[in-house]
Protein backbone atom coordinates (compact mmCIF):
# COMPACT_ATOMS: atom_id res chain seq x y z
CA UNK A 1 0.00 0.00 0.00
CA UNK A 2 2.60 2.54 1.16
CA UNK A 3 5.93 2.03 -0.52
CA UNK A 4 9.00 3.96 0.61
CA UNK A 5 11.95 3.37 -1.65
CA UNK A 6 15.52 4.54 -1.12
CA UNK A 7 14.57 7.71 0.74
CA UNK A 8 17.51 9.89 1.80
CA UNK A 9 17.34 13.25 3.53
CA UNK A 10 20.32 15.37 4.53
CA UNK A 11 20.40 18.54 6.65
CA UNK A 12 23.77 20.08 5.90
CA UNK A 13 26.33 17.52 7.06
CA UNK A 14 23.82 15.45 8.97
CA UNK A 15 22.14 12.57 7.17
CA UNK A 16 18.74 12.27 8.85
CA UNK A 17 17.60 9.42 6.62
CA UNK A 18 19.98 7.15 4.76
CA UNK A 19 18.50 5.08 1.93
CA UNK A 20 15.39 3.98 3.83
CA UNK A 21 13.05 1.49 2.17
CA UNK A 22 9.87 0.17 3.78
CA UNK A 23 6.60 -1.39 2.65
CA UNK A 24 3.51 -0.97 4.78
CA UNK A 25 0.40 -3.05 4.17
CA UNK A 26 -3.25 -1.99 4.01
CA UNK A 27 -4.85 -1.94 7.48
CA UNK A 28 -1.57 -2.45 9.27
CA UNK A 29 -0.58 -0.81 12.56
CA UNK A 30 3.05 0.03 11.85
CA UNK A 31 5.52 1.60 14.27
CA UNK A 32 8.71 3.56 13.57
CA UNK A 33 10.79 3.07 16.69
CA UNK A 34 14.11 4.61 17.63
CA UNK A 35 15.92 6.98 19.97
CA UNK A 36 15.55 10.72 19.42
CA UNK A 37 17.46 11.98 16.40
CA UNK A 38 17.27 8.65 14.58
CA UNK A 39 15.30 10.09 11.65
CA UNK A 40 11.88 8.61 12.38
CA UNK A 41 10.17 11.99 12.72
CA UNK A 42 11.81 13.21 9.51
CA UNK A 43 10.32 10.23 7.69
CA UNK A 44 6.89 11.00 9.16
CA UNK A 45 7.15 14.61 8.02
CA UNK A 46 8.11 13.44 4.55
CA UNK A 47 5.00 11.26 4.44
CA UNK A 48 2.82 14.18 5.61
CA UNK A 49 4.45 16.52 3.07
CA UNK A 50 6.29 18.95 5.36
CA UNK A 51 9.72 17.72 4.26
CA UNK A 52 11.02 16.69 0.86
CA UNK A 53 13.60 13.89 0.55
CA UNK A 54 16.81 14.49 -1.40
CA UNK A 55 16.55 11.08 -3.01
CA UNK A 56 14.05 8.26 -3.25
CA UNK A 57 10.36 7.78 -3.96
CA UNK A 58 7.22 7.37 -1.88
CA UNK A 59 4.05 5.93 -3.40
CA UNK A 60 0.62 5.27 -1.92
CA UNK A 61 -1.29 2.58 -3.85
CA UNK A 62 1.02 3.25 -6.79
CA UNK A 63 0.41 7.02 -6.77
CA UNK A 64 3.42 9.30 -6.37
CA UNK A 65 3.05 11.11 -3.03
CA UNK A 66 6.01 13.44 -3.22
CA UNK A 67 4.57 15.53 -6.04
CA UNK A 68 1.41 16.28 -4.00
CA UNK A 69 1.07 19.31 -1.69
CA UNK A 70 0.38 18.36 1.95
CA UNK A 71 -3.24 19.50 1.68
CA UNK A 72 -3.83 17.21 -1.31
CA UNK A 73 -2.56 14.00 0.27
CA UNK A 74 -5.07 11.37 1.45
CA UNK A 75 -3.06 11.24 4.65
CA UNK A 76 -3.58 12.85 8.05
CA UNK A 77 -1.16 13.47 10.84
CA UNK A 78 -1.85 13.58 14.54
CA UNK A 79 0.73 16.02 15.88
CA UNK A 80 2.77 15.35 18.99
CA UNK A 81 1.58 18.69 20.42
CA UNK A 82 -1.93 17.86 19.07
CA UNK A 83 -1.94 21.28 17.32
CA UNK A 84 -5.62 21.88 18.10
CA UNK A 85 -6.80 25.30 16.95
CA UNK A 86 -7.15 27.20 20.26
CA UNK A 87 -9.67 29.71 18.92
CA UNK A 88 -12.13 27.06 17.73
CA UNK A 89 -14.44 24.78 19.69
CA UNK A 90 -13.94 21.03 19.71
CA UNK A 91 -16.70 20.59 17.11
CA UNK A 92 -15.21 23.33 14.90
CA UNK A 93 -11.76 21.76 15.15
CA UNK A 94 -13.12 18.42 13.99
CA UNK A 95 -15.25 19.99 11.25
CA UNK A 96 -12.31 22.00 9.86
CA UNK A 97 -10.94 19.21 7.67
CA UNK A 98 -14.37 18.34 6.30
CA UNK A 99 -15.09 21.98 5.44
CA UNK A 100 -11.95 21.98 3.29
CA UNK A 101 -13.37 19.02 1.33
CA UNK A 102 -16.54 21.04 0.64
CA UNK A 103 -18.68 18.45 2.38
CA UNK A 104 -22.31 19.58 2.90
CA UNK A 105 -23.26 21.20 6.22
CA UNK A 106 -25.68 18.45 7.22
CA UNK A 107 -23.14 15.73 6.52
CA UNK A 108 -20.41 17.58 8.44
CA UNK A 109 -22.71 17.84 11.44
CA UNK A 110 -23.56 14.18 11.28
CA UNK A 111 -19.96 12.97 10.85
CA UNK A 112 -18.64 15.25 13.61
CA UNK A 113 -21.41 13.95 15.91
CA UNK A 114 -20.52 10.35 15.09
CA UNK A 115 -16.81 10.74 15.68
CA UNK A 116 -17.41 12.62 18.96
CA UNK A 117 -19.54 9.67 20.01
CA UNK A 118 -16.75 7.24 19.04
CA UNK A 119 -14.20 9.02 21.20
CA UNK A 120 -16.74 9.54 23.98
CA UNK A 121 -16.60 13.35 24.08
CA UNK A 122 -20.14 14.12 22.85
CA UNK A 123 -20.87 16.59 25.62
CA UNK A 124 -17.58 18.48 25.06
CA UNK A 125 -18.46 19.62 21.52
CA UNK A 126 -18.79 23.31 22.38
CA UNK A 127 -15.73 23.52 24.66
CA UNK A 128 -12.47 25.15 23.59
CA UNK A 129 -9.28 23.00 23.63
CA UNK A 130 -7.96 25.05 26.58
CA UNK A 131 -10.78 23.71 28.73
CA UNK A 132 -9.93 20.05 28.13
CA UNK A 133 -7.57 17.69 29.93
CA UNK A 134 -4.53 16.22 28.18
CA UNK A 135 -6.27 12.93 27.47
CA UNK A 136 -9.34 14.66 26.09
CA UNK A 137 -7.22 16.87 23.83
CA UNK A 138 -5.45 13.81 22.54
CA UNK A 139 -8.78 12.22 21.64
CA UNK A 140 -9.97 15.40 19.89
CA UNK A 141 -6.74 15.46 17.85
CA UNK A 142 -7.35 11.85 16.90
CA UNK A 143 -10.98 12.54 16.02
CA UNK A 144 -9.97 15.51 13.86
CA UNK A 145 -7.62 13.26 11.89
CA UNK A 146 -9.87 10.21 11.46
CA UNK A 147 -13.05 12.11 10.62
CA UNK A 148 -11.53 12.77 7.19
CA UNK A 149 -11.28 8.99 6.65
CA UNK A 150 -7.70 9.19 5.38
CA UNK A 151 -6.14 6.17 3.71
CA UNK A 152 -3.19 6.53 6.04
CA UNK A 153 -3.06 8.01 9.54
CA UNK A 154 0.27 9.18 10.93
CA UNK A 155 0.71 9.55 14.69
CA UNK A 156 3.69 11.45 16.10
CA UNK A 157 4.47 10.23 19.63
CA UNK A 158 0.72 9.98 20.30
CA UNK A 159 0.94 9.09 23.98
CA UNK A 160 4.07 10.89 25.12
CA UNK A 161 2.25 13.91 26.57
CA UNK A 162 -0.05 11.81 28.77
CA UNK A 163 0.58 10.60 32.27
CA UNK A 164 1.05 6.91 32.87
CA UNK A 165 -2.48 5.91 33.83
CA UNK A 166 -4.21 7.79 31.02
CA UNK A 167 -1.62 6.39 28.64
CA UNK A 168 -2.54 2.75 29.30
CA UNK A 169 -6.21 3.52 28.62
CA UNK A 170 -5.45 5.43 25.42
CA UNK A 171 -3.24 2.62 24.19
CA UNK A 172 -6.19 0.22 24.29
CA UNK A 173 -8.45 2.83 22.74
CA UNK A 174 -6.06 3.47 19.83
CA UNK A 175 -6.01 -0.24 19.03
CA UNK A 176 -9.78 -0.51 19.26
CA UNK A 177 -10.20 2.51 16.99
CA UNK A 178 -7.76 1.20 14.46
CA UNK A 179 -9.73 -2.06 14.31
CA UNK A 180 -13.00 -0.17 13.99
CA UNK A 181 -12.09 2.29 11.26
CA UNK A 182 -9.71 -0.01 9.39
CA UNK A 183 -7.30 2.80 8.51
CA UNK A 184 -3.60 2.07 8.13
CA UNK A 185 -1.78 3.58 11.12
CA UNK A 186 1.87 4.60 11.17
CA UNK A 187 3.02 5.62 14.63
CA UNK A 188 6.35 7.22 15.53
CA UNK A 189 7.63 6.56 19.02
CA UNK A 190 10.79 6.38 21.09
CA UNK A 191 9.01 4.24 23.66
CA UNK A 192 9.59 0.60 22.84
CA UNK A 193 6.85 -0.66 25.15
CA UNK A 194 4.39 1.57 23.33
CA UNK A 195 5.56 0.25 19.98
CA UNK A 196 5.45 -3.37 21.17
CA UNK A 197 1.94 -3.15 22.58
CA UNK A 198 0.42 -1.17 19.70
CA UNK A 199 2.01 -2.28 16.48
CA UNK A 200 1.62 -5.25 14.18
CA UNK A 201 5.11 -4.60 12.84
CA UNK A 202 7.94 -2.38 14.00
CA UNK A 203 10.80 -0.77 12.08
CA UNK A 204 13.73 0.05 14.37
CA UNK A 205 15.69 3.15 13.32
CA UNK A 206 19.19 4.13 14.27
CA UNK A 207 21.13 7.10 12.86
CA UNK A 208 18.91 7.38 9.81
CA UNK A 209 18.94 3.70 8.90
CA UNK A 210 16.41 0.93 9.37
CA UNK A 211 18.07 -1.74 11.55
CA UNK A 212 15.29 -4.32 11.58
CA UNK A 213 11.64 -4.66 10.54
CA UNK A 214 9.69 -7.35 12.35
CA UNK A 215 6.69 -8.30 14.41
CA UNK A 216 7.04 -7.33 18.08
CA UNK A 217 7.63 -10.89 19.35
CA UNK A 218 10.22 -11.63 16.66
CA UNK A 219 11.94 -8.33 17.34
CA UNK A 220 12.11 -9.13 21.02
CA UNK A 221 13.14 -12.74 20.76
CA UNK A 222 15.29 -12.65 17.62
CA UNK A 223 17.07 -9.29 17.35
CA UNK A 224 19.25 -9.35 14.26
CA UNK A 225 21.59 -6.44 14.95
CA UNK A 226 23.52 -5.44 18.09
CA UNK A 227 21.63 -2.13 18.24
CA UNK A 228 18.22 -3.78 18.24
CA UNK A 229 19.33 -6.29 20.88
CA UNK A 230 20.41 -3.45 23.13
CA UNK A 231 17.61 -0.96 22.39
CA UNK A 232 14.56 -3.21 22.52
CA UNK A 233 13.97 -4.40 26.08
CA UNK A 234 16.54 -5.24 28.72
CA UNK A 235 19.24 -7.61 27.53
CA UNK A 236 22.48 -9.18 28.71
CA UNK A 237 25.05 -8.89 25.93
CA UNK A 238 28.31 -10.86 25.74
CA UNK A 239 31.06 -10.25 23.18
CA UNK A 240 33.12 -13.07 21.74
CA UNK A 241 33.65 -15.45 18.83
CA UNK A 242 30.92 -17.68 17.47
CA UNK A 243 31.51 -21.43 17.80
CA UNK A 244 29.13 -24.33 17.08
CA UNK A 245 26.48 -24.30 19.85
CA UNK A 246 27.36 -20.94 21.33
CA UNK A 247 29.77 -18.08 21.83
CA UNK A 248 33.34 -18.31 23.04
CA UNK A 249 33.80 -15.43 25.45
CA UNK A 250 37.28 -14.62 26.78
CA UNK A 251 37.58 -15.49 30.52
CA UNK A 252 34.04 -16.96 30.65
CA UNK A 253 34.31 -19.92 28.27
CA UNK A 254 31.66 -21.10 25.81
CA UNK A 255 28.17 -19.76 26.53
CA UNK A 256 25.19 -21.62 25.01
CA UNK A 257 23.24 -19.88 22.23
CA UNK A 258 21.66 -20.25 18.78
CA UNK A 259 21.49 -18.16 15.68
CA UNK A 260 24.60 -17.64 13.65
CA UNK A 261 25.58 -20.50 11.39
CA UNK A 262 28.92 -18.88 10.66
CA UNK A 263 31.39 -20.18 13.21
CA UNK A 264 34.59 -18.30 13.89
CA UNK A 265 33.26 -14.76 13.33
CA UNK A 266 33.05 -11.96 15.93
CA UNK A 267 29.58 -12.02 17.44
CA UNK A 268 27.34 -10.92 20.32
CA UNK A 269 25.28 -13.22 22.46
CA UNK A 270 22.07 -11.74 23.80
CA UNK A 271 20.04 -13.33 26.55
CA UNK A 272 16.97 -11.77 28.19
CA UNK A 273 16.97 -11.38 32.02
CA UNK A 274 13.81 -13.47 32.31
CA UNK A 275 15.53 -16.35 30.52
CA UNK A 276 18.50 -16.44 32.90
CA UNK A 277 18.07 -18.91 35.77
CA UNK A 278 19.91 -19.38 39.01
CA UNK A 279 21.19 -22.89 38.31
CA UNK A 280 23.43 -25.62 39.66
CA UNK A 281 26.02 -25.16 37.02
CA UNK A 282 27.04 -22.40 34.60
CA UNK A 283 28.57 -18.96 35.10
CA UNK A 284 29.79 -18.31 38.61
CA UNK A 285 28.99 -14.92 40.09
CA UNK A 286 28.19 -12.89 43.20
CA UNK A 287 24.80 -11.26 43.85
CA UNK A 288 25.31 -7.49 43.84
CA UNK A 289 21.80 -6.27 44.39
CA UNK A 290 18.21 -7.54 44.62
CA UNK A 291 15.19 -5.34 43.86
CA UNK A 292 11.60 -6.45 44.34
CA UNK A 293 8.97 -4.98 41.96
CA UNK A 294 5.88 -6.77 43.22
CA UNK A 295 5.26 -9.31 40.47
CA UNK A 296 8.91 -9.86 39.69
CA UNK A 297 12.35 -9.41 41.21
CA UNK A 298 15.50 -8.20 39.51
CA UNK A 299 18.81 -9.67 40.60
CA UNK A 300 22.09 -8.10 39.47
CA UNK A 301 24.99 -10.56 39.49
CA UNK A 302 28.64 -9.59 39.04
CA UNK A 303 30.60 -12.11 37.02
CA UNK A 304 34.39 -12.22 37.07
CA UNK A 305 35.80 -10.98 33.75
CA UNK A 306 32.76 -8.83 32.82
CA UNK A 307 32.28 -5.11 33.56
CA UNK A 308 28.49 -4.92 33.63
CA UNK A 309 26.52 -7.12 36.01
CA UNK A 310 24.31 -9.81 34.51
CA UNK A 311 20.62 -9.10 35.06
CA UNK A 312 18.28 -11.88 36.14
CA UNK A 313 14.50 -11.46 36.35
CA UNK A 314 12.51 -13.88 38.50
CA UNK A 315 8.83 -14.37 39.23
CA UNK A 316 7.89 -13.33 42.77
CA UNK A 317 10.34 -12.59 45.55
CA UNK A 318 14.00 -13.58 45.11
CA UNK A 319 15.36 -16.33 47.32
CA UNK A 320 18.93 -15.03 47.35
CA UNK A 321 20.52 -12.09 49.11
CA UNK A 322 23.28 -9.66 48.15
CA UNK A 323 26.72 -11.25 48.54
CA UNK A 324 25.58 -14.81 47.85
CA UNK A 325 27.51 -16.98 45.37
CA UNK A 326 25.30 -18.15 42.52
CA UNK A 327 25.59 -19.93 39.20
CA UNK A 328 23.75 -18.63 36.12
CA UNK A 329 22.40 -20.72 33.26
CA UNK A 330 20.02 -20.57 30.32
CA UNK A 331 18.77 -22.78 27.52
CA UNK A 332 20.65 -22.50 24.25
CA UNK A 333 17.46 -21.66 22.31
CA UNK A 334 16.74 -18.68 24.61
CA UNK A 335 20.00 -16.95 23.70
CA UNK A 336 20.57 -15.31 20.32
CA UNK A 337 23.87 -15.00 18.49
CA UNK A 338 24.20 -11.78 16.50
CA UNK A 339 26.95 -11.17 14.01
CA UNK A 340 28.89 -7.98 14.78
CA UNK A 341 29.56 -5.21 12.30
Amino acid at each position, binding site marked *: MLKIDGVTRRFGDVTALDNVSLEIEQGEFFALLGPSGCGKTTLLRIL*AGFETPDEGTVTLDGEDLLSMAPNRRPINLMFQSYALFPHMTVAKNIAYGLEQEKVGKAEIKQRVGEVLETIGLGEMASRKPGQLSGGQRQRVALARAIVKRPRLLLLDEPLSALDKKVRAGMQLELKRLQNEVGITFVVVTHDQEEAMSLADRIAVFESGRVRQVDEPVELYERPRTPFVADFVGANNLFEGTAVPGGLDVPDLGVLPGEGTELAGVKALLAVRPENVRLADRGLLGTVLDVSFYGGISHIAVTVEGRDKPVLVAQQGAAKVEAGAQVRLGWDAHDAVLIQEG
Partner: protein
Amino acid sequence: MGKPRFLYVPFWLTYVFLYAPILVLVVMSFNAGRSPYVYEGFSLKWYGVLAEDDKIMQGLVNTLIVAAASTVLATVLGTLLAVGLARHTRSKLLDALGLMPAILPDLVLAIGLLVFYDVVKFSLGLHSVILSHALFGMAFVAAVVRTRLTHADSSLEEASRDLGAGPVTTFVRVTLPQLAPGIVAGALLAFTLSIDEFVIAFFTAAPTEPTLPIVIYSMVRFGVTPEINALASILLLVSFTVVIVAQRMTKIGEIRAQD
Protein backbone atom coordinates in the same frame (compact mmCIF):
# COMPACT_ATOMS: atom_id res chain seq x y z
CA MET B 1 1.30 43.18 53.63
CA GLY B 2 3.70 43.50 56.53
CA LYS B 3 6.03 45.62 54.41
CA PRO B 4 7.26 48.92 55.88
CA ARG B 5 5.12 51.83 54.70
CA PHE B 6 8.05 54.04 53.72
CA LEU B 7 8.90 51.70 50.84
CA TYR B 8 5.79 53.01 49.10
CA VAL B 9 7.14 56.58 49.13
CA PRO B 10 9.32 56.28 45.99
CA PHE B 11 6.46 54.47 44.29
CA TRP B 12 4.01 57.31 44.92
CA LEU B 13 6.67 59.94 44.15
CA THR B 14 7.07 58.40 40.70
CA TYR B 15 3.37 58.78 40.07
CA VAL B 16 3.37 62.36 41.30
CA PHE B 17 6.29 63.09 38.98
CA LEU B 18 4.40 61.52 36.07
CA TYR B 19 1.01 63.06 36.62
CA ALA B 20 1.53 66.41 38.39
CA PRO B 21 2.29 68.30 35.12
CA ILE B 22 -0.69 66.68 33.46
CA LEU B 23 -2.93 67.60 36.37
CA VAL B 24 -1.75 71.23 36.22
CA LEU B 25 -2.39 71.24 32.48
CA VAL B 26 -5.96 70.00 32.88
CA VAL B 27 -6.74 72.39 35.75
CA MET B 28 -5.40 75.36 33.78
CA SER B 29 -7.60 74.50 30.82
CA PHE B 30 -10.54 75.59 32.99
CA ASN B 31 -8.86 78.92 33.79
CA ALA B 32 -10.99 82.06 33.43
CA GLY B 33 -7.96 84.28 32.75
CA ARG B 34 -5.69 84.53 29.71
CA SER B 35 -2.58 83.10 31.33
CA PRO B 36 -1.84 79.40 31.40
CA TYR B 37 0.20 79.93 34.58
CA VAL B 38 -2.05 81.97 36.92
CA TYR B 39 -5.39 80.47 37.93
CA GLU B 40 -8.16 83.11 38.06
CA GLY B 41 -11.29 81.02 38.53
CA PHE B 42 -13.29 78.30 36.77
CA SER B 43 -14.51 78.77 33.22
CA LEU B 44 -15.20 76.67 30.11
CA LYS B 45 -14.55 79.56 27.77
CA TRP B 46 -11.32 78.19 26.31
CA TYR B 47 -13.16 75.07 25.15
CA GLY B 48 -15.50 77.41 23.32
CA VAL B 49 -12.60 79.31 21.77
CA LEU B 50 -11.06 76.01 20.74
CA ALA B 51 -14.27 74.81 19.05
CA GLU B 52 -14.39 77.97 16.96
CA ASP B 53 -10.73 77.91 15.99
CA ASP B 54 -10.82 76.78 12.36
CA LYS B 55 -7.06 76.35 12.12
CA ILE B 56 -6.98 73.86 14.98
CA MET B 57 -10.09 72.04 13.82
CA GLN B 58 -8.62 71.70 10.31
CA GLY B 59 -5.36 70.45 11.83
CA LEU B 60 -7.26 67.92 13.90
CA VAL B 61 -9.16 66.65 10.87
CA ASN B 62 -5.91 66.37 8.89
CA THR B 63 -4.25 64.48 11.71
CA LEU B 64 -7.14 62.04 12.04
CA ILE B 65 -7.16 61.40 8.29
CA VAL B 66 -3.40 60.79 8.30
CA ALA B 67 -3.53 58.59 11.41
CA ALA B 68 -6.43 56.46 10.16
CA ALA B 69 -5.10 55.95 6.64
CA SER B 70 -1.50 55.32 7.68
CA THR B 71 -2.65 52.89 10.39
CA VAL B 72 -4.60 50.83 7.88
CA LEU B 73 -1.60 50.71 5.52
CA ALA B 74 0.88 50.05 8.34
CA THR B 75 -1.23 47.26 9.85
CA VAL B 76 -1.71 45.33 6.63
CA LEU B 77 1.88 45.72 5.41
CA GLY B 78 3.41 45.25 8.87
CA THR B 79 1.49 42.02 9.48
CA LEU B 80 2.51 40.62 6.10
CA LEU B 81 6.11 41.68 6.72
CA ALA B 82 6.12 39.95 10.11
CA VAL B 83 4.70 36.72 8.68
CA GLY B 84 7.18 36.81 5.83
CA LEU B 85 10.12 37.39 8.15
CA ALA B 86 9.07 34.74 10.65
CA ARG B 87 7.94 31.99 8.31
CA HIS B 88 9.67 32.40 4.99
CA THR B 89 13.20 33.62 5.57
CA ARG B 90 16.08 32.79 7.84
CA SER B 91 17.99 35.97 7.00
CA LYS B 92 18.92 37.90 10.14
CA LEU B 93 19.85 40.88 7.96
CA LEU B 94 16.40 41.16 6.36
CA ASP B 95 14.94 40.77 9.82
CA ALA B 96 16.95 43.68 11.18
CA LEU B 97 16.35 45.85 8.10
CA GLY B 98 12.59 45.28 8.26
CA LEU B 99 12.38 46.58 11.82
CA MET B 100 14.90 49.39 11.27
CA PRO B 101 12.49 52.32 10.65
CA ALA B 102 11.19 51.86 14.21
CA ILE B 103 14.54 52.70 15.78
CA LEU B 104 15.93 55.07 13.15
CA PRO B 105 15.96 58.72 14.42
CA ASP B 106 12.87 60.53 13.09
CA LEU B 107 15.05 63.24 11.69
CA VAL B 108 16.98 60.84 9.47
CA LEU B 109 13.76 59.32 8.19
CA ALA B 110 12.24 62.77 7.64
CA ILE B 111 15.17 64.12 5.63
CA GLY B 112 15.43 60.90 3.67
CA LEU B 113 11.75 60.93 2.78
CA LEU B 114 11.80 64.59 1.77
CA VAL B 115 14.78 64.02 -0.52
CA PHE B 116 13.17 60.88 -1.91
CA TYR B 117 9.84 62.62 -2.66
CA ASP B 118 11.78 65.40 -4.34
CA VAL B 119 13.83 63.01 -6.47
CA VAL B 120 10.77 61.07 -7.70
CA LYS B 121 8.83 64.36 -8.13
CA PHE B 122 6.12 63.27 -5.69
CA SER B 123 3.82 66.11 -4.63
CA LEU B 124 3.59 66.97 -0.94
CA GLY B 125 0.27 66.90 0.90
CA LEU B 126 -1.67 64.65 3.25
CA HIS B 127 -0.92 61.66 0.99
CA SER B 128 2.85 62.10 1.44
CA VAL B 129 2.44 62.29 5.24
CA ILE B 130 0.24 59.19 5.14
CA LEU B 131 2.91 57.24 3.26
CA SER B 132 5.65 58.47 5.61
CA HIS B 133 3.70 57.55 8.71
CA ALA B 134 2.76 54.19 7.21
CA LEU B 135 6.48 53.53 6.75
CA PHE B 136 7.49 53.78 10.38
CA GLY B 137 4.11 52.52 11.63
CA MET B 138 4.67 49.38 9.59
CA ALA B 139 7.95 48.71 11.38
CA PHE B 140 6.22 48.95 14.77
CA VAL B 141 3.35 46.70 13.72
CA ALA B 142 5.84 44.20 12.30
CA ALA B 143 7.86 44.21 15.53
CA VAL B 144 4.80 43.57 17.71
CA VAL B 145 3.29 40.91 15.44
CA ARG B 146 6.69 39.25 14.97
CA THR B 147 7.05 38.76 18.73
CA ARG B 148 3.66 37.13 18.85
CA LEU B 149 4.52 34.91 15.88
CA THR B 150 7.64 33.56 17.51
CA HIS B 151 5.49 32.43 20.44
CA ALA B 152 2.82 31.01 18.14
CA ASP B 153 2.92 27.29 17.43
CA SER B 154 3.84 26.74 13.76
CA SER B 155 2.43 23.22 13.94
CA LEU B 156 -1.04 24.80 13.90
CA GLU B 157 -0.38 25.97 10.35
CA GLU B 158 0.94 22.55 9.42
CA ALA B 159 -2.15 20.97 10.96
CA SER B 160 -4.32 23.21 8.81
CA ARG B 161 -2.44 22.18 5.67
CA ASP B 162 -2.61 18.56 6.74
CA LEU B 163 -6.40 18.80 7.08
CA GLY B 164 -6.67 19.93 3.47
CA ALA B 165 -6.57 23.72 3.65
CA GLY B 166 -4.52 25.68 1.12
CA PRO B 167 -2.05 28.39 2.10
CA VAL B 168 -4.60 31.23 1.85
CA THR B 169 -7.30 29.50 3.92
CA THR B 170 -4.64 28.57 6.46
CA PHE B 171 -3.52 32.17 6.75
CA VAL B 172 -7.03 33.55 7.16
CA ARG B 173 -8.52 30.89 9.43
CA VAL B 174 -5.52 29.82 11.53
CA THR B 175 -2.63 32.30 11.38
CA LEU B 176 -4.61 35.56 11.58
CA PRO B 177 -6.78 34.60 14.60
CA GLN B 178 -3.60 33.60 16.42
CA LEU B 179 -2.06 36.98 15.67
CA ALA B 180 -5.17 39.11 16.26
CA PRO B 181 -4.16 40.50 19.68
CA GLY B 182 -0.72 41.43 18.30
CA ILE B 183 -2.24 43.05 15.23
CA VAL B 184 -4.67 45.12 17.35
CA ALA B 185 -1.87 46.21 19.67
CA GLY B 186 0.35 47.10 16.69
CA ALA B 187 -2.41 49.08 15.00
CA LEU B 188 -3.12 51.11 18.15
CA LEU B 189 0.57 51.79 18.51
CA ALA B 190 0.82 52.98 14.91
CA PHE B 191 -2.28 55.15 15.39
CA THR B 192 -1.09 56.90 18.55
CA LEU B 193 2.42 57.38 17.16
CA SER B 194 0.99 58.98 14.04
CA ILE B 195 -1.34 61.35 15.94
CA ASP B 196 1.42 63.22 17.76
CA GLU B 197 4.23 62.73 15.27
CA PHE B 198 5.85 66.08 14.51
CA VAL B 199 9.26 65.84 12.84
CA ILE B 200 8.39 63.65 9.85
CA ALA B 201 5.05 65.42 9.30
CA PHE B 202 6.79 68.80 9.44
CA PHE B 203 9.16 67.75 6.65
CA THR B 204 6.73 65.94 4.40
CA ALA B 205 3.46 67.91 4.75
CA ALA B 206 2.38 70.69 2.43
CA PRO B 207 2.32 74.13 4.14
CA THR B 208 -1.36 74.43 3.26
CA GLU B 209 -2.33 71.18 4.98
CA PRO B 210 -0.58 71.06 8.36
CA THR B 211 -1.31 68.32 10.87
CA LEU B 212 -2.34 69.16 14.44
CA PRO B 213 1.16 69.00 15.99
CA ILE B 214 2.40 71.45 13.37
CA VAL B 215 -0.54 73.81 14.07
CA ILE B 216 0.14 73.68 17.81
CA TYR B 217 3.83 74.31 17.27
CA SER B 218 3.15 77.44 15.24
CA MET B 219 0.62 78.67 17.85
CA VAL B 220 3.01 78.16 20.74
CA ARG B 221 5.55 80.39 19.06
CA PHE B 222 3.17 83.35 19.48
CA GLY B 223 2.61 82.72 23.16
CA VAL B 224 0.52 80.17 24.99
CA THR B 225 -3.12 80.62 26.04
CA PRO B 226 -5.28 78.12 27.94
CA GLU B 227 -6.77 77.20 24.56
CA ILE B 228 -3.77 74.91 24.10
CA ASN B 229 -4.47 73.40 27.52
CA ALA B 230 -8.07 72.73 26.51
CA LEU B 231 -6.87 70.98 23.36
CA ALA B 232 -4.31 68.95 25.29
CA SER B 233 -6.96 67.91 27.83
CA ILE B 234 -9.23 66.62 25.08
CA LEU B 235 -6.35 64.70 23.48
CA LEU B 236 -5.54 63.27 26.91
CA LEU B 237 -9.09 62.03 27.32
CA VAL B 238 -8.97 60.43 23.88
CA SER B 239 -5.64 58.65 24.48
CA PHE B 240 -6.78 57.39 27.89
CA THR B 241 -9.85 55.90 26.26
CA VAL B 242 -7.75 54.31 23.52
CA VAL B 243 -5.31 52.79 26.03
CA ILE B 244 -8.10 51.32 28.12
CA VAL B 245 -9.91 49.95 25.07
CA ALA B 246 -6.64 48.48 23.81
CA GLN B 247 -5.97 46.77 27.12
CA ARG B 248 -9.47 45.34 27.16
CA MET B 249 -9.19 44.12 23.58
CA THR B 250 -5.83 42.44 23.97
CA LYS B 251 -7.05 40.80 27.17
CA ILE B 252 -10.11 39.46 25.42
CA GLY B 253 -7.89 38.39 22.54
CA GLU B 254 -5.51 36.56 24.88
CA ILE B 255 -8.35 34.78 26.62
CA ARG B 256 -9.83 33.78 23.27
CA ALA B 257 -6.48 32.54 22.02
CA GLN B 258 -5.86 30.51 25.15
CA ASP B 259 -9.34 29.03 25.25
